[in-house]
């Protein structure tokens, strides 16, 4: 019961904490403006180069990628703000169980990320004419949920790593944008140089965008299950490695007496 309480309070506080620098109307504006502007940019680039047939591929890819603003950027930001705002010693001084405390930080961002994807799909359909008529709703829904969950795991991995670094926000930016390049969001992973293609498969989003495109084309849950299974494994491994980094940081910080000045 205590673990559940810690998990829930960690979830709620980490989400509420972002309103320290973001007010609710601006949060809503960002939700709509960011989703549509990034998608529109790449849709127009694709339209310029490859013509209208490139639009669905790019619009769906960017819809899924919108989850990373919540699950990568916001989750890593928690580490950054803990360091800047001087709350990290208080967090680490509590006797609370560490695993629910750590995982809880990402939970509401997962729901927020799912909302971002839903808004992006709306734009993809109504602004850019993506056809959702063949969509297998169950497969797509599960893909979106799993993508948000596993990407949060990846966010916690980078967030955990960032405890050891001086400026987590730099990494929040790098990883959020790098997904656009590595995860098959705007072009198939096979278009990347062969030597860097393996990097794409360490990101859960790579599996998610492929599964989403398949589900929108009519693939069943069984058809996309292998992709979702791979995504789940990558997400869980990320989460556990992130937790390891968090614990390592805590141990090192207690030994050296250095929390924020790394």
């Amino acid at each position: 019961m205590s673990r559940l309480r810690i998990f829930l309070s960690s979830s709620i506080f980490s989400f509420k904490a972002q309103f320290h620098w973001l007010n609710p109307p601006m949060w809503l504006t960002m939700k709509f403006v960011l989703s549509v502007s990034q998608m529109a940019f790449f849709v127009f680039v694709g339209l310029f180069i490859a013509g209208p047939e490139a639009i669905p591929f790019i619009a769906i890819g960017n819809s899924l990628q919108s989850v990373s603003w919540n699950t990568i950027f916001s989750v890593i930001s928690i580490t950054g703000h803990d360091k800047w705002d001087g709350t990290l010693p208080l967090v680490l001084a509590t006797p609370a169980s560490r695993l629910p405390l750590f995982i809880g930080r990402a939970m509401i961002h997962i729901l927020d990320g799912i909302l971002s994807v839903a808004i992006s799909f709306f734009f993809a359909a109504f602004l850019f004419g993506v056809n959702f008529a063949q969509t297998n709703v169950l497969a797509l829904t599960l893909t979106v949920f799993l993508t948000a969950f596993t990407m949060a795991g990846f966010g916690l991995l980078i967030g955990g790593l960032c405890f050891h670094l001086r400026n987590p926000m730099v990494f929040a930016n790098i990883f959020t944008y790098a997904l656009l390049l590595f995860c098959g969001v705007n072009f198939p992973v096979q278009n990347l140089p062969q030597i860097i293609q393996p990097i794409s498969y360490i990101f859960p989003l790579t599996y998610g965008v492929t599964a989403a495109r398949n589900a929108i084309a009519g693939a069943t849950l069984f058809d996309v299950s292998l992709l979702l299974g791979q995504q789940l494994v990558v997400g869980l491994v990320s989460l556990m490695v992130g937790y390891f980094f968090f614990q390592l940081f805590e141990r090192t910080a207690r030994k050296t007496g250095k929390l924020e000045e790394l």
Partner: protein
Amino acid sequence: MPEALRVIYSAFRMAMLHWFADPQWVIPNIIAPFIFTSVALTLFKDSTGPFGLYAVLGGGMMGMWGNTLYASGFAIEMERWQGTLEEVMAAPSKLLHVVAGRSVSNAVFGLTNMLAVFLIAVLVFRVQIEVDDPLLFVTTTVLTLVSVSTLGLIFASAFVLSRSTQVLTNGLETPLYIISGSMFPIALLPFWIHPIAYVLGPTWGVDAIRLAASQEYLSQTFWQGFDVNTAILLDVVMMMAITLAYAGMAVVLFKVVEKRARIKGTLVEA
């Protein structure tokens, strides 16, 4: 040295010192243009025509845009966070001149992003970059930098009154890349966006830069039917006229904003 220039230079110097003290901060400012350009170059990889140069010049332009936009926002936000905004406002130097110096320094950093994009394009993506008229290319780039910096002043004046500058800069960044046609012709955009594009000085600047780089762009510009040199001249005239209007607006806006901030006394908690 006139007072205004001295203040602008001091702010410029201070921004440079800050950058050298903690250079990692430039990464968030330039990461989006850098990644967007890499994505575009990968998309352009199998295309024929002048797409590669389009992506490279667009990426460089976006670097200037992104850096200036962030700089305008953070020039104020960092002062607010560090508790020095009141001192800056209370100083006899005009806030406009302080922000102008920072805005120029950050547009200059944006040029380093342009250089990085060029290097990546040539070394990784094997894009052949040949500039038809190097002198005009450099001249139009510098003038565009001035235009971007001046637009940054207008943003900065609004940011003085808002606590959400970080959010506003994030929200404005990509729409500006789209509207100014950094990486594709404006003709692709819905018609109702065109007037917004034409009141942005950098829209004309990037057009002039492209024309100075390659005459092949003449068929895609606003000035079809003119020769290249006339088209560049017209682009530059448009850009400078708009830039002067921005400068005038910035002077008025900073006066209004400073006055309002002093009357309301809510500068830090805006």
